[in-house]
């Protein structure tokens, strides 16, 4: 893999086998290939159900990829296939280099918003007081009401949860950021801030793979696209 490429996905495919339904096979996606230079942003496009989120989950390894490879250039110059890497290797890369913003917040229960956001910093060794200050500053910037900082995100609105989720993923800017509709339930003002934060991160070198709806302002950040074809109807 040439050194300026950070991520190279080749002929990636994912199938689900539902054993509870007699081994029924469901196609997630197939034949996905792209290469992404360091610092660039790529949009995964395609009709609803084409498997865009599944591609992100395969890169993050929440899904086990089937066929194909996901070659990733690590910070220390290594070349690793995330589709085959050991769990321990994936965990190491996740904690140091890779971020993932989902559409939905699966926040840890009974943890105040500010601590949800600060945790990636404290886990990396930042003193808790400083981590909380930085988390508060980010929540402030994203327009989360001060009164909510010490509340549990489980009680938040969709848009608030999404911003907490986003803040947690970017507070320690990763080398590779996976974005799955990070602005889906945000109002235009909050969306603007998210785009501004992402564009600052991009300027500092973060590479991105994103899924978003047509017309999203995230499109302005993208350098390239990968179109997933609609799937043949299955019988």
């Amino acid at each position, binding site marked *: 893999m040439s050194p300026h490429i950070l991520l190279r996905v080749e002929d990636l495919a994912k199938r*689900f*086998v*539902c*054993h*509870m339904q007699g081994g029924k096979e469901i196609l997630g996606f197939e034949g996905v290939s792209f290469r992404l230079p360091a610092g660039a942003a790529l949009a995964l496009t395609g009709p609803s159900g084409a498997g865009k989120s599944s591609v992100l*989950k395969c890169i993050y*390894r*929440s*899904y*086990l990829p089937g066929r194909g490879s996901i070659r990733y250039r690590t910070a220390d110059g290594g070349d690793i296939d995330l589709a085959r890497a050991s*769990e*321990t290797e*994936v*965990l190491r890369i996740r904690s140091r280099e890779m971020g993932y913003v989902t559409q939905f917040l699966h926040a*840890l*229960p*009974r943890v105040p918003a500010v601590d949800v956001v600060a945790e990636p910093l*404290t*886990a990396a060794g930042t003193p808790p007081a400083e981590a909380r200050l930085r988390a508060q500053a980010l929540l402030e910037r994203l327009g989360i009401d001060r009164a909510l900082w010490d509340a549990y995100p489980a009680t938040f609105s969709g848009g608030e949860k999404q911003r907490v989720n986003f803040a947690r993923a970017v507070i320690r800017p990763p080398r590779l950021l996976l974005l799955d509709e990070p602005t889906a339930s945000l109002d235009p003002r909050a969306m603007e801030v998210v785009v501004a934060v992402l564009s600052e991160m991009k300027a500092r070198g973060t590479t991105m793979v994103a899924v978003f709806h047509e017309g999203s302002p995230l499109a302005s950040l993208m350098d390239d696209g990968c179109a997933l074809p609609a799937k043949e109807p299955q019988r």
Partner: protein
Amino acid sequence: MTPLLAVRGLTKRFGAGCGECLDRTSALRETNRCPRCGAILACREVSFDLYPGEVLGIVGESGSGKSTVVRLLHFDLEPTAGEYRLAVADAAAGGGGRNLFALSPFQRRRIRNEHMGIVYQNPRLGLRLKVSAGGNIAERLLMAGWRHVGRIRERASELLRQTEVPLARMDEPPRNFSGGMQQRVQIAKALSTRPALLLLDEVTTGLDVSVQAKVLDLLRSLQRELGIATLVVSHDLGVIRLLTSRTIVMRHGEIIEQGLSDQILEDPQHPYTQLLVNSVL
């Protein structure tokens, strides 16, 4: 990275065995009972690594062998076969990378007292319910070689504070305590010697949901502060999701699947794991 703990081929058979037990039982054959001689293979050929600071889950239904694995690792049971290495224990046991199962009972006890902590589902197994909470912790520290009474008492109160047991109740026997508080005393006792390895065997099973939540929150915050390598055995996928980063799924004494915990929950591969994930209420 070198694993802290390495287990290879861990097998426990209850019963004399007939030489064909391993061939006649397995997850695939849907039984851990040898049809020929009636022996039970509580766990068979279990192998895994645990890395420093890592929290690994073992999930499975009752009878899957997950608790047997923990008890073998704590030397509560004798294995039928297998190897067990603990990176920190080498120096204490006087042998680099030796199989702990091959050591004398005395050496094993010493390794257990100095390097392991365990919390059982049933506080009766982990605590002497008629001895004071502080006394339970003191006893553990004495076994690990602590001698200074003042320091033992200081450490005991520090641990009870950490585990949110009111200090006023330090001299009361745990039999007077609620189930949740008994578990917290067990946790305090397990952590007292700053073990390298923490074993949690269904620690929240049987507690009220609100008490479960408190015990889990406590374990999470201790995990963040102390970073002790931990094995979490549970039948509850919620506990696994909350505490672990990697998970092993066991059935009929055998490992049938292992992976990142979020992958096990979102994209389970084995039919049994799919059933387990789809059975969550």
